């Protein structure tokens, strides 16, 4: 009885919320959507296509045991250990893009010629902790 009295009165339906914090840490490192149009940047006079561009970005905390989940090298866990145990001025591992996809752009050059170009690494497609 004593234990029960001390235990916080939790409604039965909160239990799933309560356990979730252990299973999926809050705002874990993951890919986020971001969409821009070149007219917002006033570049649509010379960038003809595409009209909209979604570069995406990575944001969130890197859990302590990153392992296979992010394809992180062992160094990431070592860095995390240094931050926690030895020297907190060493930064925690960061949530960064691991893979990208290209983007095709149609632009008008200053001399009036027109160029179609495919640029590498313009859209983040996967995140990792490093």
């Amino acid at each position: 009885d004593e234990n029960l009295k001390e235990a916080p009165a939790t409604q039965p339906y909160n239990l799933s919320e309560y356990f979730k914090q252990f299973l999926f840490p809050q705002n874990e490192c993951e890919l986020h959507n971001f969409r821009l149009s070149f007219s917002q940047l006033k570049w649509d006079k010379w960038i003809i296509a595409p009209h909209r561009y979604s570069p995406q970005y990575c944001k969130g905390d890197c859990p302590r045991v990153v392992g296979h989940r992010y394809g992180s090298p062992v160094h990431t866990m070592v860095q995390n250990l240094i931050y926690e145990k030895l020297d907190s001025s060493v930064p925690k591992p960061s949530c960064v893009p691991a893979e990208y996809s290209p983007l095709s752009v149609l632009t008008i050059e200053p001399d009036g010629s027109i160029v179609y170009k495919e640029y590498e690494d313009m859209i983040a497609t996967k995140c990792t902790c490093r």
Partner: protein
Amino acid sequence: PHSRGRAASDRTSGFLVAPEDNASELNPLLQLPKGVRRGYALLPPLLKVLSDRGPQNWESEVPRLQPDSRALRYMKRLYKMSATKEGIPKANKSHLYNTVRLFTPCSECKHRHRDLMKGDVHSVDLLFNLDRVTALEYLLKSVLLYSFDTSVPVSPSLTCTCHLSVKEQDSSGQVCPSIPHSIAFSLHLEVKKRKWVEIDVTSFLQPLIATKRRNIHMGVNFTCLMGDPQQNTKLENPVNVAPVPPSLLLYLNDTSEQAYHRWNSLRHIRKNPRRPRQRNGLRVDPTGDIGKEPSQGKRASRQRR
């Protein structure tokens, strides 16, 4: 997480070289003074503005001349064939190019008609300025692009003869028709409304573009007759279809770090579908043949297998 960034900044000049920097690209002795931000000055316009060196710098990149509307329509059509609506390049194995440049002839060229017995021969002097082609862009194919704006009703089938000659410029910059390298094309075309006609001039212009010639000056004689020799219909009175001066289309393989090299990723996905793609230093031969893997690469892939 690639170390590529360092490699790119170490790379010798190869990106777009703004005209004033041309000299330093052409003559290594005229290297940019250390203080000048070399990496920035050599970036293509899009990457230049993304490096956000303040609006005054990239204002100069905003086009001063508006392109020809027909040329713009053609390039938008090429874009739709090459990329999705979101701008992702289509995985099209046949297209090796990652850059296509369209040049319209400089405005001062004259359009001359000469009446001959056989009717009008349209001849025109074309001067193309190729300053925007960078040192790391290799020619895969070049095409003269004619757009027939047939507002006047013409016979459905035409047989046209096009005679090209390249004119050297003498040291004083005057156009003097030296013994022109010339080539004649005879092509039969079904002219529908707003017809594009592409004339492949790759072998013809390759020597000039390979030597990074900045200006290409050529004369084009164009004669169209009605009828179709294959159907041995009699070719009769010439048709006064005044083709608009053609544009020059260059299909290029940009070998710089920032450009997308589909065969590297295609090759890589085939070999290691699971491992995340990493950049290898493989140099792609400009003619599109994929360079041989270094021998140790073969041994490593054999071990992996």
